[in-house]
Structure formats: C-alpha cells, structure tokens
C-alpha cells in the first residue's frame, strides 16, 4: 500500500467513501480518526465544565484541556502554553486581534493588510477602520496574485502598528515571504499577525522562527474538529490587550460597579470554551507532529506539479497563482474561459471529485486576478496520483459536457 493510501485509511470519511477524490482540503480537511476518537472518548469519560473543578470529572476535564493547550504550544513551538488562546476558529481569532489589539490603537494609526487576504483577515480590519478611525493600507499583488513586496517601503510608515497577512493564500497557494514582512514591521516597531489557516495542514509551525507576534488557525483545516481555533500571541503583547468578549472565566473579579480581568490566555476565553474540540485538536496535532513531513512535502509538491502540468494542457484553461519558482502549497486554482466554476465543479462531482468553485472568500484577490470566481483543487497528505489523474480526466470531461 502506498504511504498516501495508508494515511487515507486513517480518515473515517475517506475510508467510508472509497470512490471519492477529495480535493477540497483548503476548505475543510478531513478529520483524522484519532481526533474523532478523542472527542468521543472525552465526552464519554471526562465531560465536565473546566476551570472551576471540584469533582474528579471536572479535574480530569481541566487536565485534558490544559494538556491540549500544551500540545498546541508544541505544534507552534510557542515559548509557553499561556500564549495559546482557544477560539471558535481562525475567523474568531482574527477578530479577537482586530478588536482587542485594535482597542490599543489611536486614530491615525495604520494597519497594513494585503489584497490577497481571505475575507476573514480583510473585513475585520475594514470594520476596525470604520469604528476606530485608523487607516487601512493594502499591499497590492502582482499579476499572479503574489504579494508585491516591492511596495512595502512606501506602505510601512511610522504610524503602522500592525501588519496582518496570510501565510499562504487559499486561492493561489503562494507562501508569503514572512521574513520580509517581519523585517519591514520591525523597522517601525509594528507587530505582525500571520493568518496560518492554510498552513497548518501542511505541518507543524514555528512561531518563534517566523518571528511574528500573532498566529491564527482553525482546527477543521488541521484534520481536527471544527468549532475550534487558536490564536497564539506573544506574552507581552497579549498582556497589553484588553479583553475581547466578556463572561465567565475571563474575569479577576466582578462587582456591580466594575470588573477586572484575568491574565492571558483566560482573559480572552470568555464562557465555556470548546473543551472536547480542544482535546480533539490536540490529538490531531500530536498525530501530525509524529509524521515525516519531508516525505509528505515532497509528495505534495510532486502531485501539485502534476496537477499544474496536466491542467495547463487543457485548452482555454487559465491557471491562477505563482510562477513555478515561487514556493506554493498544493492549491491549484483555475478558470476555464466561458465556463462557470459551479458548473465545472458539478460535473467534477459527477465524476467523484470534490472541488470547490466560487470566490473562495477572496473577492479582492480574484478581482485583482481579473476573475469573479474560479475552481480550486487543493491537496493534502492523503491525496495521491490517482486523485490527480482523476481530476485531470474529469476536467477534460467537464469541458466536453459543458460546451
């Protein structure tokens, strides 16, 4: 059995659907059985509310939750588990920064994002701009959708307080040159937020080596449950931020007149957190940390190249995304002249392929690329040559069916 089919067998949905070619992992990666089992085990043996435990179930739930936080810290190579905040997803994590870090900004301060951002790292900053009187700058993209780093010097100013960019585009797969962003930010003492939503399914991360201040991701794109996400933040930066949401667990003391706040990470975790989901996330990340990523990356890159080469041969098909020289995640988006992605993906579905067509929550980027919508094939560690071959055949079939 190939390595990919061995891995595939560990994913309940893929095991239950042998004919399925799942090429939509950028939207949601399939859940690994260890994560699903961890959720069921937790709910069956340790379900209780956390943080106020005075019985053994609550004590066990507390420990499982703390241990999940330490797993995330290891996955991200964070200095401390206290830098790990559990949220309901990447979007909530990004909004947390926009609101809580945003509350520390003054009118006239500037935030820099890029045109390649997912709506979840775009709209919160527009909302902050409109609410708080900050200025929002937007790094342009080149013809292939890559960040135009040459524009950094003009856009990073003394008033720039934060640069918030994606680590990897969910449309083009292009990896951001994070070092260049961090260097530009450091020169003006700005903070850096990295949207890691698309990165985490391609292996453990190292926030210290990346040199950023915030890192956000979602469990459902990391082979884990959905309804959970993470914001990692540098201890000092988190400590300087007021809370985001109010409620149980994030307070130091509440009186009728006023309230004071707990230390991070609890300050940013109002209410009962997603406990079973955190336990499931930890199981998935622990499993990922034990994998041989060099081999997986080599396979992902090979399959991605096969996909690109094959699609390029289809008349009328335009590939979106970076030149061959740019490092990219195995995400391949394309537009076929005269065909709507929803029709294309519908025919692909008919052939057993799961691809996504639409604006991929990246309307500003697609507008810059000159399209309204596109089709996207995204690959993960459980995909293999057969998936790519089936996709190429089915795209050809779709062109035939639809024209």
């Amino acid at each position: 059995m190939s390595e990919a089919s061995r891995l595939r067998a560990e994913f309940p949905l893929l095991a239950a659907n042998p004919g399925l070619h799942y090429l939509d992992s950028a939207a949601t990666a399939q859940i690994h059985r260890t994560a699903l089992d961890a959720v069921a085990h937790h709910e069956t043996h340790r379900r209780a509310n956390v943080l106020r435990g005075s019985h053994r179930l609550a004590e066990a739930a507390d420990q499982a939750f703390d241990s999940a936080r330490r797993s995330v810290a290891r996955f991200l190579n964070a200095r401390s588990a206290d830098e790990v905040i559990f949220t309901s997803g990447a979007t909530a994590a990004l909004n947390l920064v926009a609101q809580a870090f945003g509350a520390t900004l003054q009118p006239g301060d500037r935030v820099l994002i890029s045109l390649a951002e997912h709506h979840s790292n775009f709209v919160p900053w527009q909302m902050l701009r409109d609410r708080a009187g900050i200025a929002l700058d937007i790094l342009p993209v080149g013809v292939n959708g890559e960040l135009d780093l040459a524009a950094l010097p003009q856009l990073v100013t003394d008033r720039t307080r934060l640069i918030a960019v994606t680590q990897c585009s969910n449309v083009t797969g292009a990896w951001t040159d994070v070092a260049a962003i961090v260097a530009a930010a450091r020169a003006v003492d700005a903070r850096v937020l990295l949207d890691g939503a698309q990165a985490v399914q391609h292996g453990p991360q190292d926030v210290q080596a990346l040199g950023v201040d915030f890192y956000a991701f979602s469990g459902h794109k990391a082979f884990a449950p959905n309804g959970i996400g993470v914001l990692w933040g540098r201890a000092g930066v988190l400590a300087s931020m007021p809370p985001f949401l109010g409620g149980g667990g994030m307070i130091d003391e509440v009186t009728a007149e006023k309230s004071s706040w707990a230390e991070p990470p609890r300050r940013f975790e109002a209410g009962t957190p997603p406990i079973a989901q955190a336990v499931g996330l930890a199981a998935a990340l622990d499993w990922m940390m034990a994998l041989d990523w060099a081999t997986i990356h080599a396979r992902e890159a090979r399959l991605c190249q096969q996909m690109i080469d094959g699609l390029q041969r289809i008349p009328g098909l335009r590939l979106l995304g970076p030149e061959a020289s740019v490092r990219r995640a195995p995400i391949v988006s394309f537009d076929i002249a005269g065909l709507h992605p929803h029709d294309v993906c519908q025919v692909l579905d008919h052939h057993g392929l799961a691809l996504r067509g639409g604006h991929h929550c990246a309307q500003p980027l697609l507008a810059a690329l000159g399209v309204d919508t596109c089709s996207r094939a995204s690959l993960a560690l459980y995909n293999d040559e057969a998936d790519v071959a089936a996709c190429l055949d089915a795209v050809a079939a779709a062109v035939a069916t639809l024209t």
Partner: protein
Amino acid sequence: MSESLDLYQDAIKQMAAAAHGHGQLQSASGEAKLNNPLCGDRVYMQVALAGGRIAAIAHQTKGCLLCKAAASLLGARAVGLDISAIAGTTSALEALLREQAPVPPDWPELAMFLPAHAYPSRHKCTLLPFRALQAALRQAGAAQ
C-alpha cells in the same frame, strides 16, 4: 457515477447560449440588481411596462448555466406578461425545484430545470433571474 449528468442537457446549454434578452434598455420602468453572495452570481434586470404588462425586458447576467438559462428563458418569454403571471411562474419553478412539482402547461421550458431538483445548492442560481425580475417589477410599481 456512470449515469449521465442530465443537469446539463442540451436544452439548458442552448437556452443559456441564446442569451435572449441580454442587453440594456434605453428607458426602463424598473430595474434590480441581485446577487448570490455565496457563488458570485449576479443579475441586472430591467423592464419596461405598458398597461401593467411587460413591454420589454433586458438583463446582464454573470452566472452559471442554470442562472443564464433562466435569464434567457425570461428574455424569451416574459414580454406580454404581468406581475402576477411572473409571480405564478416563479412559484411553479420553486415547487418544481423543491419537490419536483409538475411543469406548468404554459411554461413547458421549465422542464429543463427538473434535474436541478437533486442539487439544492443550485436552486438559488436558477431562481435568481426570476427574483430579479420580480424586484424590477416591484420597483416599476406594477400593482399586483
């Protein structure tokens, strides 16, 4: 997987390609822009009324084949009808998509949308031009 995909029968593709009514009116009694934020489909629909009936119709449609076919069908068939006839046809199309209700005898072309019944996420695309036309008629102040 081997059964053929009857969603994209020739009738749909031909109706979409014909793009009946595509264009713009010099002077419209009412118009509406509707979009489906989830898929990016967009319909810009204009009508001119005369005596409570549609005298002219024009649309600009960005969308999938189902959306384009529906817009084109309206371009071909809407002239001469009033708002209540359009409302009736819209309901008939909804019912046909939702529960495979019978095709109304006066709109036999709607049969081409029957296979979309199996794909609920496509119902909105199909209905978008009808909704846009209704909105344009309302804007024109056509009394029901």
